[in-house]
C-alpha cells in the first residue's frame, strides 16, 4: 500500500531569544525544502506556541502543534547553541508530544555565534531525539559564525550552504519516505 500524500517536513525554530540569528537559518531551510517536489513545509516558531511553563509533557500539549507533528513525516529542528547545549524551551515544546513522533525522521541544524556551528548542542540533542522515537539522520547543517553567513536582513552570504542543505535534505527525504512506508505497511513483530 502506498500513501500518496505529499511528504510533510516542517522546520522548527527552536529558540525564543530576541534577535535570534537562528531565524535566518530556519527560513533558509524552509526555502530549500519548498523547492522539492512533493514536499510540503512550514516554519514552526516555538516563540509563537501557547506553551505554559507551569506543567510539562502531555500536560502542556498544544492541539495545533500536535496536529502538525502528526502530519509531519520528518522534522528539521533548528537549534542554536546556548551554553554548550540546546535551549530548554525547545525541549519543553518537544516533550509535549510523543506518539506523534514515533518512527519519523529528524535532521538537526545547528547555529552558533562561534565557529563550531552548534556541534555541541547537536551532540547533546541526539539522546533526546532518540528517546522521543525520532530517527536522526547522519547529515547536519552547521551554521558557524552565523553573523557572517547571513546579513541582517537574512540574505545568505555563503552559497556553500545551499549544497550542504541539499545533501542534508536528500538524506532526510529518503529517510522520511522509508519510515512512512514502514509506519504504514510493516507491522511490529509479535
Amino acid at each position, binding site marked *: *500500500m502506498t*500513501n500518496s*500524500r505529499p511528504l510533510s517536513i516542517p522546520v522548527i525554530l527552536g529558540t525564543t531569544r530576541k534577535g535570534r540569528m537562528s531565524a535566518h537559518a530556519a527560513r533558509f531551510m524552509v526555502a530549500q525544502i519548498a523547492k522539492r517536489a512533493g514536499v510540503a513545509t512550514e516554519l514552526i516558531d516555538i516563540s509563537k506556541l501557547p506553551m505554559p511553563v507551569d506543567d510539562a*509533557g*502531555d500536560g502542556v500539549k498544544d492541539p495545533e502543534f500536535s496536529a502538525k507533528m*502528526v*502530519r509531519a*513525516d520528518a522534522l528539521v529542528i533548528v537549534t542554536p547553541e546556548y551554553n554548550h547545549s540546546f535551549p530548554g524551551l525547545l525541549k519543553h515544546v518537544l516533550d509535549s508530544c*510523543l*506518539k*506523534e513522533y*514515533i*518512527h519519523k525522521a529528524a535532521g538537526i541544524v545547528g547555529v552558533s555565534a562561534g565557529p563550531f556551528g552548534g556541534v555541541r548542542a547537536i551532540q547533546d540533542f541526539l539522546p533526546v531525539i532518540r528517546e522521543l*522515537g525520532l530517527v536522526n539522520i547522519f547529515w547536519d547543517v552547521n551554521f558557524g559564525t552565523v553573523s557572517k553567513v547571513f546579513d541582517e536582513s537574512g540574505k545568505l552570504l555563503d552559497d556553500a550552504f545551499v549544497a550542504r542543505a541539499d545533501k542534508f535534505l536528500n538524506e532526510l527525504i529518503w529517510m522520511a519516505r522509508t519510515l*512512512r512506508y*514502514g*509506519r*504504514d*505497511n*510493516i*507491522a*511490529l513483530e*509479535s
Partner: protein
Amino acid sequence: MAKQKDKMICPKCGDEMNHHADKLIDPVKPEDMKHVNPALGGMVEEMHCCPACGAAASRRAE
C-alpha cells in the same frame, strides 16, 4: 505480557491501523505505577499509524 491483537481503527478515517512500534514510557502520575511492567521498567505503549490518512494513535499494551 500478552499483546493486544485486535487492530486499532483510525479515529479520523475508519481504516485499520498498522501497529508499528512499542514504546517504553516512564510513569508520570502515581496512578501510572500500577501499569509499570517490572521486567521492562516502564509502561509499554503501542504505536499505530493509519496507512490511509497518516493519523497516529496509541494505546497501552496489555
